[in-house]
């Protein structure tokens, strides 16, 4: 008697890649706009990026139905916070909230691989990277999703800071200026689209800085 296997899964993977890079006074968050299932494309124009607060943006790849539910959950919690505190949530506060929300469903997880980017209370860029159950870390840059195995080594090569154990302590945020970081992101997605079948169509790039939030798009390979 072999163990009975499930004939149905509550999850699906809609593919896609996300990247975030933190700078001294900005943060760049980007994700491709392709939503797929299996070997098929569902749509070429789906946004994986969600603005959670004034200075806090999240990009998530994975199962988009879970991603949507997670985003709605966080938006509702943010409204409650605003009613109680009379101000917007800071990025580090939202980071902790996201971690707790994910762990809450530890035994039926949100199939959502997130990167959170924005400005902290002092206006410095910050990026937080997560796994599906809420384990998180503040980093200078991060990538998640189907293209992450192709993107992360390249970002390491361009951005990796020396070990945090060395003295003097070096900042995790990149010394690059905003324009250079955006250029890097475009390069990275163009490369990932070449070899990852789930990444392509368009990349949506969101930049958070003191002036606010702006969005731009770049075309990618459609195949």
């Amino acid at each position, binding site marked *: 008697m072999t163990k009975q296997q499930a004939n149905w899964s509550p999850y699906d993977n809609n593919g896609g890649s996300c990247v975030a890079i933190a700078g001294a006074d900005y943060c760049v968050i980007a994700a491709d706009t392709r939503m797929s299932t299996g070997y098929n494309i569902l749509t070429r124009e789906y946004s994986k990026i969600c603005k959670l607060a004034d200075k806090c943006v999240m990009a998530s790849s994975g199962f988009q139905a879970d991603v949507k539910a997670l985003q*709605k959950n966080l938006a*509702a919690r943010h*409204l*409650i916070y605003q*009613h109680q505190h*009379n101000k917007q949530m800071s990025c580090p506060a939202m980071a902790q909230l996201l971690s707790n929300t994910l762990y809450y469903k530890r035994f039926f997880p949100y199939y959502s691989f997130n990167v959170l980017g924005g400005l902290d209370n002092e206006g410095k860029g910050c990026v937080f990277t997560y796994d599906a159950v809420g384990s998180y870390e503040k980093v200078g840059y991060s990538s998640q999703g189907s293209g992450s195995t192709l993107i992360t080594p390249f970002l390491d090569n361009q951005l990796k800071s020396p070990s945090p154990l060395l003295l003097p302590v070096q900042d995790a945020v990149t010394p690059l200026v905003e324009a250079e970081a955006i250029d890097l992101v475009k390069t990275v997605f163009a490369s990932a689209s070449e070899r990852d079948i789930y990444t392509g169509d368009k990349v949506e790039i969101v930049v958070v800085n003191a002036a606010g939030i702006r969005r731009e798009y770049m075309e990618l390979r459609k195949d």
Partner: protein
Amino acid sequence: MFRNQYDTDVTTWSPAGRLFQVEYAMEAVKQGSAAIGLRSKTHIVLGCVNKANSELSSHQKKIFKVDDHIGVAIAGLTADGRVLSRYMRNECINYSFTYESPLPVGRLVVQLADKAQVCTQRSWKRPYGVGLLVAGLDESGAHLYYNCPSGNYFEYQAFAIGSRSQAAKTYLERKFENFTDASRDDLVKDAIMAIRETLQGETLKSSVCTIAVVGVGEPFHILDQATVQQMIDAFEIVGEQEAPDAAAGQEASAEPEPEPEQGAAAGEGVAPMDI
């Protein structure tokens, strides 16, 4: 209203068919400081008089944002008002989450009224001692409702509750026919004038009142003190000119008011707790 043997419990009827505890709860509303509301086709304005316990304390918050399209002004036990505002905020958030659209105001006031009614029919509860003026905008237009501790609710074109609200109501009754088509700014001016009526002689300055607006293309927000003071100053000058025409021989005492006010406006009294 005199003490009698039928007023101990909210669940005890009097022989005349009255629930005295509920009526006493409505008295609590009449004792609170005034709150007024008025609406046009596209905007609703809420205003309230700020009462501070002493010169040293800040005044209580009586106007709450419930959602982008709904706000509430309260009179009576402000603690009860705060709790009900939290309930209303929760309901709006849950509705938005499920239906991805704003909660219609009419639905919210019914839920609120039903919640108040429960407290009039349980022996271990007491009625909420707060009256709420709910201002909201939805697909069917601009609405202003009044929710009582009894569990009743009514829709109004304009209304005032709390102490000395009768003076404001008289003013509103005189002017309400113009409200439907009034501009947003005229509506705010009328709100400030109505509040002035309740002050009955006290100087009107922005530290004494709070004004909030919600309308088409304008999410609910409380106007900041500077803006309110500007509007007060603007029509105080007009008010000076109007007073001689207003009532022949009746309001001689209105004249000396404007001058001390201009000086008082610059030096502020008690600062509000938060905005």
